[in-house]
């Protein structure tokens, strides 16, 4: 670990000194970490989560080594279409997380802000914009983004198109969820497939897309099964494991490899003991670096995150025979689209099925659409008599999350849950 830390510090210093010169070394670090996840996985977490980490590390490291093998996307971009062309989708949010592995997020964020980008913008976007604008990270030949969930999407991609010349397709996701909306988006998705044909000189195979969607349906069903099991069994993982799961569900869904992994996890989890502690349903992003949260949720038999709405933000069965319409419908029905009551319904659906002891929503700095509804969700949870904690912080920029404040809130909340249980026991 000492060598790894030294290397991270070295890359950080090199990048700050000369942002255009350290990319090769960064790639080497990603490759080394990929090998580490395979050869020396974290022993304290389950095999399933080890494999998940290795899969996501390979996906990112291998894609970045072959610039013609991927496009930039946002987390809601239809990776199923890219897969038909043999292309990976590297979401800018995930790339920002991986770059923060070199502790460079503060440098990139400051770089973007000093150029004039708003300090109140989402830190994932600022990290990414700073990384690209500073010249530290090279650009691919194409990109795609949706308007879903976040104002930053269109603007970040447009800004980088102007500054770095990366052309992109913009998919306008309507707010309404009627058939007219589905037709409108399905048309754009079909045009996008045509655009990829022209750009990458490959023919689009609709059969492949249908197959991806069939796998996707299976994966979603299996994931729900896994969540149910995770609310019954202790399954050691880390905060970051849930982020990897979110990445997998958005960037690798539709692939056989990811489906197989979820199935492996379903088998494995049943070999663990029953979980007797407090079950937490997590809402929105997870600040994977936060010490207090790591202390309570990394391999802890007393408190376990059993599911997150950011992993499963869409629950419907897709019609593989009409793949563009199915994708359009899925994106439009996503929990993060439309009014907040739609997202609240999905969270309530998860609480019905998984029966968590509590809900924690993390309000990530700059994410207005999510933070903006937190008070409404809390009211909804109060109706259902499920305790809910709202934590404010930043998913990536440590300077915006004060550990002491998060620790006090979290511990008070957990004490409250524990004392409620004690009271119940005494009454019985």
């Amino acid at each position, binding site marked *: 670990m000492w060598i790894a830390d030294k290397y991270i510090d070295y890359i950080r210093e090199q990048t700050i000194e000369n942002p255009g010169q350290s990319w090769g070394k960064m790639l080497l670090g990603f490759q080394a970490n990929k090998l580490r996840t395979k050869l020396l996985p974290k022993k304290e977490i389950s095999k399933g989560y080890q494999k998940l980490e290795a899969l996501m590390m390979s996906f990112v490291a291998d894609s970045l080594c072959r610039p013609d093998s991927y496009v930039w996307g946002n987390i809601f971009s239809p990776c199923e279409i890219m897969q038909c062309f043999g292309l990976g989708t590297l979401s800018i949010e995930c790339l920002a997380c991986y770059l923060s592995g070199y502790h460079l997020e503060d440098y990139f964020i400051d770089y973007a802000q000093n150029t004039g980008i708003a300090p109140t913008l989402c830190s994932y976007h600022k990290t990414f914009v700073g990384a690209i604008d500073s010249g530290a990270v090279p650009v691919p030949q194409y990109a795609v983004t949706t*308007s879903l969930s976040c104002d930053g999407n269109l603007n970040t991609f447009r800004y980088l198109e*102007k500054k770095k010349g990366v052309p992109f397709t913009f998919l306008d996701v*309507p707010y*309404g969820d009627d058939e007219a*909306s589905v037709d409108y988006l399905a048309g754009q998705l079909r045009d996008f497939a045509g655009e990829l044909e022209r750009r990458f000189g490959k023919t689009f195979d609709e059969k492949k897309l249908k197959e991806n969607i069939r796998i996707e349906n299976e994966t979603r069903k299996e994931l729900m099964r896994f969540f149910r099991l995770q609310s019954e069994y202790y399954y050691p993982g880390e905060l970051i494991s849930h982020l990897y799961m979110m990445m997998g569900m958005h960037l690798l869904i539709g692939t056989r490899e990811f489906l197989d992994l979820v199935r492996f996890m379903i088998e494995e989890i049943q070999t663990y003991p029953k979980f007797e502690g407090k079950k937490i349903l997590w809402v929105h992003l997870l600040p994977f670096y936060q010490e207090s949260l790591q202390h309570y949720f990394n391999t802890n038999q007393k408190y376990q995150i059993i599911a997150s709405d950011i992993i499963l933000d869409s629950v419907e069965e897709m019609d593989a025979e009409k793949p563009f319409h199915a994708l359009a419908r899925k994106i439009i029905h996503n929990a993060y689209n439309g009014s907040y009551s739609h997202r609240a319904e999905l969270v309530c659906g998860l609480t019905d099925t998984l029966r968590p002891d509590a809900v924690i929503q993390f309000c990530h700095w700059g994410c*207005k659409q999510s933070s903006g509804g937190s008070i409404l969700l809390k009211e909804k949870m109060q109706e259902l008599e499920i305790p809910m904690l709202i934590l404010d912080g930043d998913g990536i920029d440590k300077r915006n999350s004060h550990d002491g404040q998060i620790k006090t809130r979290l511990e008070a909340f957990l004490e409250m849950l524990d004392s409620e249980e004690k009271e119940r026991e005494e009454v019985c």
Partner: protein
Amino acid sequence: MLGYICKYAPVEIFESMGVEMKRIEPDVTNFNQAEIRMHPNICSFAKGVLEDVMSSDYEGVILTTCCDSIRRFYDVLREEYPGKFIYMLDTPRITKDAGISLYEQRIRAMIRAYEEFSGKTFDEEIFREYIKGKNEEQQIAVRAGALNIGILGARANKNIAEILKTKGTNVAFDLTCTGLGRKVVYEEQNPMTGYVGGLLSQFPCMRMEQASNRDELIRRYADSVDGVIYHTVQFCDNYAYEYAWLKSWLRSPLLLLETDYTKQSYGQILTRIEAFLESLKPDVQRIQRQTKGENAMYVLGIDSGSTSTNAVIMDRDRKIKAFSVVRTGAKSGVSAQKALDEVLQRAGLAREDISWIVSTGYGRVSIEFADENVTEISCHGKGAHYFNPKIRTILDIGGQDSKAIHLNEKGEVKDFVMNDKCAAGTGRFLEMIARTLEVSLDELGAIALTSAEKIEITSMCSVFAESEVISLIANNKEKADIADGVCHAIANKAFGLLRRVGLEPDFMMTGGVAKNPGVVRAVEEKIGAKLYICEEPEIVGATGAALYALERISEE
């Protein structure tokens, strides 16, 4: 009466039904209701609209899916007013045929919903007649001989244009959502489709796919004016991208102006606009000279800041005769009088010997004995040039704000940025930390120089930083190391400001914090260059004001 906020709202549809439409322009003093119902990071405009709606009597509000904050605002409003017509109109971002067709469907659905809600009926014939003959309002009006200013960016409340008008400048164009005139397109054959197409083809806002067309339009408009004010709203991030982009190629001088839609932000807007206008045309602000003693030989500059009030007396040969620095008390007028008395006494002069007095600083308008006032930004520029003509970049860290100013070789202000919204990176922040460390402000800088261990204060907010410092104290860290960490935190903030104005050497630091050796060293490390600091860094602004006064005398 229905309220609306967005230029894409089909206002004319409702007007043709006899409904009074009011564009909601919040001008509020607090966000009390919003703080209960909404998360603090929602944009200030949305919060302001909530305050406005809750204190007015609208029968409903028409919203569009313009941004994340407004989408959440709709959820809150619908919850709050189930009996009102709170309608979210799904507005496409694509202006091609598919977008127009979807928007027409959405508008027709909205009409049906409103008919059901209100009992009124929409008549397409009446609507046709209503929009017939409505023309697009003129968007640009450059006036010869005047200082022409354009406004761009996010929706702006009326204050900006009003301040510009009172300063005698011409607002040549206002391309913000609130400044644009309505664009109503009339098509004989299919009036509704034509109208909807017209709505979507307005000068695009940043949520629209076609916003890239904005560049060409902006280039054309901006070339015709003397300067452009780029407005952003706090917690609305979309327009900052465009500002960052325009800054790299727009030829016209550009001022970034952020507001938060409260009445309190007026003072901050005023200082920035005045300084911008002064940098464009130095004479724009001058008032008429009052009669003074015929044989007077001296002028006086006075800088009323939040921490100190400083006065400088200068003779006709541009020599400083005397200066005074007094702490600003609860009343700036009293402190100003004290500074005046003190400087006169030191110079051995009487009030009648002073021909002209220029005031500057936050309290500049409250100094009754001043003949005119000039912003502290212009005064710092002039003062810095006086002390050292090689200076191109000034860092001024005062009690309640910090600023970076870029000068040309004549000492004229070419660009500036200010931070007066948060205490981090200001003298107040240092005071707060010194108190926490139980050392005096003077000691803080000195002990920082003896630091042995590097500690990083990462929190960007002064309140967070203070609790971070308390944690460090609890961890038994050395005071010297903490002090050094704090100085570096200030330097990081300062560097951000300096970078935004271009980092051209030579550098000068002014303001009370320039006396802090810890901060000076940290800033020098960060910029990789020496800072020029004059003997009394607190009087640079007052010296600049005295120079303005001298120029005025020379003009006579």
